[in-house]
């Protein structure tokens, strides 16, 4: 158990020491995860909305696919992306493998189905007449949709947090497409894995604790936004 305690001490030390390396890692973790979540939202929100609101054949299949996508193993996503980005692969020319960009791509791919599925669930839960009433007040499609998002913002935030949680805690894809390069693509999870495989367990736990701290910070900010009035007076 002392490992856990040591981990706590280590975490405090890492944060206080102002060790440039750990700050680089933290910054990269935030950059990659937040960007990936943002991209996933950008892609997943419209798709989730379409699945939830539009009527077309194959809607259910798409929803089931999104739900399945939530179970897509990051390692496999990582492998897919790696194969695409290989020098011999179709996108090899971009030279993106082992860069933060590649990690963002992979993590966005992991988070998108989560966003789609949870956005769809969130929007379907709102009174179906809500959009009608908004349009009946003169809202065009965009405004009615914005109002709908405002209405469903509680579960939408929960979905966003789930997506962020999925990417920030993920290691398989980050490791595979990022390569865990010091100062370039090392994030908290891959650092924790490395520490573990070096037998530095308390260091690994320290990284984990820092990760939780970051996740909590992000969630707190989101929760604060969530509690704000959507319709200002």
């Amino acid at each position, binding site marked *: 158990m002392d490992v856990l305690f040591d981990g706590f001490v280590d975490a405090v030390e890492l944060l206080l020491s102002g060790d440039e390396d750990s700050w680089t890692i933290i910054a990269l973790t935030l950059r990659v995860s937040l960007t990936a979540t943002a991209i996933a939202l950008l892609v997943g929100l419209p798709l989730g909305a379409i699945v939830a609101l539009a009527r077309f054949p194959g809607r259910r299949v798409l929803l089931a696919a999104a739900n399945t996508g939530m179970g897509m193993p990051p390692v496999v996503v990582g492998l897919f992306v790696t194969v695409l980005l290989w020098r*011999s692969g179709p996108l090899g020319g971009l*030279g*993106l493998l082992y860069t933060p960009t590649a990690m963002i791509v992979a993590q966005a791919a992991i988070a998108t189905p989560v966003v789609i599925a949870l956005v769809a669930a969130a929007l379907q839960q709102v009174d179906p007449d809500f959009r009608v009433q908004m349009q009946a007040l003169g809202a065009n499609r965009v405004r009615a949709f914005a109002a709908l998002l405002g209405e469903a913002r509680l579960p939408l935030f929960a979905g966003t947090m789930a997506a962020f949680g999925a990417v920030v805690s993920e290691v398989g894809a980050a490791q595979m497409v990022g390569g*865990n390069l010091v100062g370039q693509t090392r994030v908290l999870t891959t650092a924790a894995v490395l520490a573990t495989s070096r037998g530095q367990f308390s260091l690994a736990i320290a990284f984990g604790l820092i990760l939780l701290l970051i996740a909590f910070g992000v969630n707190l900010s989101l929760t604060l936004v969530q509690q704000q009035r959507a319709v200002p007076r």
Partner: protein
Amino acid sequence: GTAPSAGGPSASASAASAAPAEKSLILATTTSTQDSGLLDELLPVFTRESGWQVKTVAVGSGQAIELGRRGEADALLVHSPEAEEKFVAEGSAGARRLVMHNDFVLLGPKADPAGVRGTSSADAMKKIANAEAVFVSRGDESGTHAKEKGLWSQAGVTPGGSWYQSTGQGMGATLRVAGEKAGYTLSDRATYLTQRDSLELEVLSEGDPGLLNVYHVIEMTQKAGGRVRADGAKAFADWMVAPATQRLIGEFGRAKFGQPLFTPDAGKDEAKLGE
């Protein structure tokens, strides 16, 4: 604990300016070189001296060689001689040069239920099999796994049954499994030394000439793929066998463990190692 990387400011500073099209090469290496911290020590120096960025992909030897074969890596630093030779024979690889070695040790619980303490490695393997004492194998086609399979065949045993367990993971994880299961296992000395404190395993058999763990650097050529940076590969391989680098390798770990983790071997005759 210690910080995960000794990379220092140079690594992160140059990272910022790194553009993939510039002088940047991909090194596929085994986990042991990274887990031991050796590369964290060496690579910043190489980058400073040569201007080449190195992207280290720490993977199993099997994956490292596969990456080389597909032209996805420019240089390999691996320790699986038989597989390497086969691979070089395929023709896509360039020069393969000896860099360093350390050795494998046979580890086991203090109680030593199979009674292998002090025996030669082949004998030890036989005893373990006869006693059906738990043996934990990496089972991941790594250099260590290859060496272990070699030992079994030397001992004339085909391992199997519930006492023979395969983790399919890296050395660190495998050591921990062995520790928890109070089993025997084969490990390279460097990894064992770095994790010794948290393990309840002891060195029971060591020093056999057959237990050497030899690392080679392999340059890849454009034959493996159009985008291979053969120039970078050559620069890296040349640097690895350069005297100054060899000195660094020889010093690595002495301060922390009281003994060096690797023995520099550049230019030596491979057949005469360990004598």
